[in-house]
């Protein structure tokens, strides 16, 4: 298999010499799995590739060949090449395997290994699947398609989506898997990868498959393989799409009148609270609605009386627009191949003046210099430019006062007369310029020496260099400038990432009889360097030069300089042995020994072994009678993976020089160094089965995993009597287990009509099984003062990592409760009819910290995606849904909006608030300025974030063969895609997945693929 290309070349040489009579043969080319006809496949005579034809719409072809000895090669984009000897056949039935499955080799840690010998739990996505989602982001393309991978897209332009494999295995560090692009391990910046360049993505989920990445494999590994040119005629392909983007959902905010009424209610209730015998109506008429209103400013009364409501968010947003173009050139000879690609993408963000542009190119070359010497490179260059908008533009506009006319007059927005100096007028903030220019060179270069047959020595030198410049200018006309008395602020920042990786391997692969043996040994060195510098200059005579003329800054004493240099290194020794017998029994053993600079002198090294076994039962003769079963492969793997993703230099207590008060001082950064820090070690067990039924029309992959992490790394807050505020330490143990299913079905396999469905279901649950010493809980402090115990992020023995710790919401107090609770101690809070009442857990009549407990967890019960793909003749309809069931979420946004007393933005749900006439509700009454339990104190605001989302809907049309070939095109496809067009959820925030920072977006895209 793996030497196929060589064999082809060899046979070709032999075949050219044999010539006899000519025969005309016919045939049909179909997809092996779907049985769909493959049109546009080239069928060429092996002896003379110029004698070729192309299959028609039904996949059929006619070709004149030299005779029974002739061989034909069938090649089609996205499929593995097939070679057939004509023999005595007059009609050739040819079935093609999809390319990704057929790509039988994969590069790991600088060595080529057989994909088949990845015995562990691996999910593969090929180019065809990736292209289903028009996106610039490869993570987004994975969403819902890999069982056990939880992808959360980020709705801000140009930003990464995050991906989590198999739930939480670590507490704080590195929940993201590592990405390995053509052998280069990259950290972040995945959005610089062009999805159109990618041939396949393999998601390695269990220790048996990730162990080769040792210390970095604990959170899974995503192996990205880019496209290569292939032997044969050169090819050009062009892909383009255009999209229009808008917010998929905003929150339902109260408009002017409702907000006005809410404030009246809140003030009047507070008045009655303080003056139980007072005249409510008179207070409203005289003190609230009258000329010298206690609650309203004149402009608010005016807006209310004129029935006006203003939408500030509308004023700073627009329709987003995106376009993306990629052009590829590829081809090859028997000695080498080339793949060149150019990409341009341009996004205009939904928030005004936000945008992202990217220009990228790629060169993948491979060339045999000598029969025993091969060199190659996979190199890409990306230049991107982000137009940043000050974050406050959106965040302020989203919660602006609907009674406040939209204009640029004021520096700050306000409710009543309260000018909020944090609420910079977003129309003014739009004039802040923020530009980021980033250049990235990602290059893997190898030399492969094969001194004797089956032995390969390979050395790979890789670079991942990013140079980034960020510029900001905040003009004098903004609230930010006024508040800080800056008279113009210019910032320039340079970030340089310089990552080097050098991998050396020696491998020996040999088949003898039914035995196959592969042995690999190697070393890997990585050095990651980072540095930055930043200048902030203040005080400019005018705004004309923006950030470009730092020399013009006159407030020299305010000038701020900063810089840092950080280097981390990793050194590894690795070994791996694969053995298989008859492609029926498989054994893989891996050992990696890693040293990391992130740990103290005594704990730098860790060993990460794994062992995996597989048994393909369908190869047994007794199985051949069981017709429905076409594949039945059992897998079991056990291994240890590590995690070193901790803050830099956490082994030492650091004192940073700090310039203040005319001299340099040394000040501790608050972290207690921990020289005993050591690797997080995850012991992972995986059991899996791959099942194919009914001629592979139904395939099921099921996996069970059980992961024990014994040395969890986390930042632990300390009692400050220690002199420090926190330390990084190995604090405890965590168990994480779950199951995953990936199911594919070909419901209809007709010539002109195919219908495929697929489904992934994943479930994982985690539990803290030990903490250090006798500790039962580790608290997460934060909030406004930095010392409040947070509702999430705490660790409790025996509970999930994703626990919610708060008071439990009992009910909204009613008049009938007053007698019962009149002696209760609510620690200074008011609990009168209409107010939130928490559960008195210990029943002692006092609500205090003892009544806070773990009230729930956020983990979904299960999640995944499902899709349907229908093709009828040239038409295609593809729908892909993703979902999560049982997901919970704390929405700070919603809780804030629901806690409004009309002097801040309020949610429409407050219309359902408690009043003496409307008591059957869980929304507390309006009340201004009297302390009571809020949404944030209890779990009342815990969102049921289960959702079902139509993440993509694509309708496509492929030009009929005849028309295409008239235009000299190989493949022409038009499509329209709607992304995130439908969503079903009870979540009240922006989006159950992307959270509350920024609304999610939807996009309608029209695109085109051309190949010739």
């Amino acid at each position, binding site marked *: 298999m793996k030497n196929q290309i060589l064999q082809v070349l060899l046979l070709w040489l032999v075949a050219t010499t044999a010539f006899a009579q000519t025969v005309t043969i016919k045939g049909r080319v179909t997809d092996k799995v779907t049985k769909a006809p493959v049109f546009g496949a080239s069928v060429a005579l092996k002896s003379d590739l110029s004698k070729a034809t192309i299959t028609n719409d039904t996949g059929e072809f006619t070709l004149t060949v030299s005779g029974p000895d002739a061989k034909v090669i069938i090649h089609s984009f996205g499929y593995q090449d097939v070679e057939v000897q004509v023999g005595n056949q007059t009609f050739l039935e040819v079935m093609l395997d999809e390319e990704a499955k057929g790509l039988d080799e994969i590069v790991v840690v600088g060595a080529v290994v057989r994909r088949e010998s990845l015995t562990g739990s691996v999910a593969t996505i090929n180019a065809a699947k990736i292209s289903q989602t028009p996106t610039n982001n490869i993570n987004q393309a994975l969403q819902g398609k890999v069982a056990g991978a939880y992808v959360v897209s980020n709705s801000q332009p140009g930003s990464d989506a995050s991906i989590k494999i198999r739930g939480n295995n670590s507490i704080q560090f590195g929940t993201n898997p590592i990405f390995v692009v053509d052998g280069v391990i990259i950290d972040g910046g995945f959005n610089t990868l062009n999805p159109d360049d990618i041939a396949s993505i393999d998601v390695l989920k269990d220790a048996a498959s990730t162990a080769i990445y040792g210390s970095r494999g604990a959170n899974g590994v995503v192996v990205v393989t880019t496209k290569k040119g292939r032997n044969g005629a050169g090819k050009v392909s062009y892909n383009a799409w255009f999209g229009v983007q808008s917010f998929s959902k905003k929150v339902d905010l109260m408009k002017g009148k409702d907000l006005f009424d809410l404030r009246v209610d809140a003030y009047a209730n507070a008045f009655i609270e303080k003056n139980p015998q007072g005249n409510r109506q008179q207070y409203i008429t005289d003190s609230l609605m009258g000329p010298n209103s206690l609650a309203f400013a004149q402009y608010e009364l005016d807006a209310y009386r004129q029935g006006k409501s203003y939408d500030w968010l509308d004023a700073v947003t627009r329709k987003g627009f995106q376009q993306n173009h990629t052009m590829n050139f590829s081809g090859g000879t028997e000695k080498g191949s080339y793949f060149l690609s150019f990409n341009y993408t341009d996004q205009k963000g939904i928030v005004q003046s936000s945008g992202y542009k990217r220009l990228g190119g790629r060169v993948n070359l491979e060339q045999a210099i000598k029969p*025993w010497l091969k060199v190659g490179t996979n190199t890409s260059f990306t230049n991107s430019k982000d137009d940043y908008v000050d974050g406050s533009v959106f965040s302020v506009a989203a919660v602006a006062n609907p009674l406040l006319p939209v204009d640029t007059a004021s520096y700050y927005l306000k409710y009543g*007369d309260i000018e909020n100096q944090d609420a910079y007028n977003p129309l003014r903030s739009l004039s802040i310029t923020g530009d980021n220019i980033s250049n990235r060179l990602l290059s893997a270069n190898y030399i492969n020496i094969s001194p004797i047959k089956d032995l390969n020595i390979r050395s790979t030198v890789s670079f991942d260099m990013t140079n980034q410049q960020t510029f900001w200018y905040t003009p004098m006309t903004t609230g930010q400038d006024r508040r800080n008395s800056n008279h113009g602020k210019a910032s320039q920042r340079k970030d340089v990432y310089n990552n080097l990786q050098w991998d050396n391997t020696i491998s020996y692969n040999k088949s003898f009889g039914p035995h196959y043996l592969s042995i690999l040994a190697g070393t890997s060195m990585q050095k990651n360097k980072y540095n930055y510098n930043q200048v902030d200059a203040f005080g400019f005579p005018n705004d004309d030069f923006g950030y470009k003329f730092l020399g013009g800054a006159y407030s020299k*004493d305010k000038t701020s300089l900063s810089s840092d240099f950080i280097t981390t290194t990793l050194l590894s020794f690795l070994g791996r042995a694969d053995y298989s017998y008859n492609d029926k029994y498989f054994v893989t053993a891996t050992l990696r020994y890693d040293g990391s600079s992130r740990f103290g002198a005594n704990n730098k090294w860790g060993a990460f072994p794994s062992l995996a076994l597989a048994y393909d039962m369908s190869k047994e003769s007794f199985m051949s009678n069981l017709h429905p079963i076409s594949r039945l492969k059992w897998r079991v793997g056990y291994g240890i993976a590590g995690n070193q993703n901790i803050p830099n230099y956490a082994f030492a207590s650091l004192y940073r020089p700090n310039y203040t008060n005319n*001299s340099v001082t040394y000040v501790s950064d608050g972290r207690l160094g921990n020289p005993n820090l050591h690797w997080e070690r995850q012991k992972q067990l995986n059991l899996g089965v791959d099942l194919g039924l009914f001629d592979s029309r139904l395939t099921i992959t099921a996996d069970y995993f059980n992961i024990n992490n014994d040395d969890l790394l986390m930042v632990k807050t300390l009692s400050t009597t220690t002199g420090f505020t926190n330390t990084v330490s190995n604090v405890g143990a965590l168990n994480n287990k779950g199951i995953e299913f990936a199911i594919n079905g070909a419901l209809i396999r007709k010539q002109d009509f195919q219908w495929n469905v697929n489904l992934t279901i994943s479930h994982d649950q985690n539990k803290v099984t030990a903490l250090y010493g006798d500790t039962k809980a580790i608290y997460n402090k934060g909030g406004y003062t930095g010392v409040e115990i947070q509702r999430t992020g705490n660790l409790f023995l025996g509970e999930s990592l994703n626990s919610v710790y708060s008071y439990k919401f009992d009910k909204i107090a009613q008049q009938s409760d007053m007698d019962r609770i009149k002696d209760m101690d609510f620690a200074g809070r008011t609990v009168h009819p209409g107010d939130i009442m928490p559960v008195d857990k210990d029943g002692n009549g006092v609500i205090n910290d003892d009544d806070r407990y773990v009230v729930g967890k956020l983990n979904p019960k299960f999640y995944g995606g499902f899709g349907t793909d229908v093709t009828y003749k040239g038409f295609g309809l593809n729908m892909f849904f993703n979902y999560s069931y049982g997901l919970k979420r704390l929405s700070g946004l919603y809780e804030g909006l629901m806690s409004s007393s009309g002097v801040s933005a309020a949610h429409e749900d407050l219309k359902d608030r408690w009043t003496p006439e409307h008591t059957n509700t869980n929304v507390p009454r309006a009340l201004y300025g009297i302390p009571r339990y809020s949404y944030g104190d209890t779990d009342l605001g815990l969102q049921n974030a289960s959702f079902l989302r139509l993440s993509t809907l694509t309708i496509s049309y492929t030009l009929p063969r005849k028309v295409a070939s008239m235009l000299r095109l190989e493949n022409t496809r038009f499509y329209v895609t709607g992304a995130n067009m439908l969503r079903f959820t009870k979540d009240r925030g922006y989006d159950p997945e992307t959270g509350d920072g920024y609304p999610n977006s939807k996009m309608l895209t029209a695109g085109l693929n051309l190949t010739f």
Partner: protein
Amino acid sequence: MKRRAALGILPVMILVSTVSCTDFLDQQPQTALTQEQVFAKLENIDPLITGLYTNWRNARKDRGGFMFQLGGDESQQGAFQVRSEADQAGLDRYDGFLAPRNNALTQQWDLRWPIVSAAAKAILALQTNTEDEAKRNVLLGEASFIWSAVTFELTQYWGEIPIIDAGKLNEFGTSRKPLPQVYEYLIKNLQFAVDHLPETQTDKRRVTKYAAMALLGKVYLYAPQESNARDYQKAADMFDGVIKSGKYSLLPKFGDLFDPSKPNSTESLYEFQFTNTYPDNNQTQWQMGSRALASIDGNCAFGGYDLMVPTAYAYKDATNGGVWEAGDVRKTASIRYDFIYNGQPPKLLSGFGGDELDPHVKKFEDPRTQGTMSFWYSGKNIIYMRYADVLLCYAECLNELKRTPEAVGIVNNQVRTRAFGGTLPVTMKWNEGLSQDEFRTKMLDERMRELCFEGWRRMDLIRSGKFVSLIKARNRWAAESNTIQEFHKKYPIPLTEVLQNEDISDADQNQGYLP
């Protein structure tokens, strides 16, 4: 042949990649020193000590710098603040929010311990250092002073506290220690500072011998009875030493004390050094000023956000039930009554507390910011200890030592004479025949008039025994809530401390805060 040559590359490659792997993996921080490096030599300990000064100073700036002054009889929160932040309001209301979970207090607690701990480590490192002995002793004196100043504050407000002695970490742990032991340490460390600090420092960030003497005097005077450390004679000796040094005198004009163009005057024993440039500004005016002015002009030097305002008692005249006597120049130098700005009277804004145009604290106003920058940049030095305080404390000691006439003399001839513009009217003179107890009562008011908002009031109230009665009578919010009790003299140990400090359990909580 070529193949063999190629094969020969292999060992070279392996060799190169494994050589000196320990060096390769040894990556030290490039822009920070490790603790070991810092404490290894005087050259590094010196900037560490200046870092401690900065941290100590920063504890006194911005919002946090006023937390201990809330809930007093001379100062309280503005009405809008009380309404918006329940935990902080608890500091004035003495209600259920003044509990272990109170975040405003936790923040103050958490801020101070790292300073104490770093000072303790510096002390230990200096004790074993063998470089330049003279310099070493000065640094040791400074570290001892900072350790003591912060520990003194913590024990005054929280009572029994851990003693951080870097040499005895294993022995002491981080459990609460009895007051006699805490004060024994305080006295020991301060005495060292007295013995080794220089009489003057050109670098005004650094403390002097006399600042140490004054603080040690205060420790003897303020020590609670249970500590067995209160000693009026020793306190008097310390204050007397400061007075006899002849290095300090009262400024003729009281108002000059708060004039930013006259910092570090002859009256100042120590003041926290600030400027108008971030991060060395102190934002105090942001907290002290009036929102009514802030809304007119963000660069008005007496604008701000009403965190803390004077109580009615602290701003009214004696004839109206307040503290001020006719003719006392300290009244208008300490408190702003006049809010006319650019000829216009400001108006109250809707939706706020309604007290935005009541008298405000004036001592932190920084006229240098007027018109050019936000009051957020206010950055006048903040006085820690000044000579008038030394004189008043000395007088108090004399009174306790039954030398009341002498004490009255000091108050009349120095502090009150200056307060009335250089000539003390006969009617304003205190009678030399005051009883000891009458003197104590009058002194509490005198200290308010002289030192209001300078940060000593809460301690004064605690030691006077009138903590509850005076606060309940004078603090608007405490009166309204009417829940203040004797146990409130000590703040609760923060919940996070109880949860995270293995040496402090629920049972160790200050009395009154346990359910």
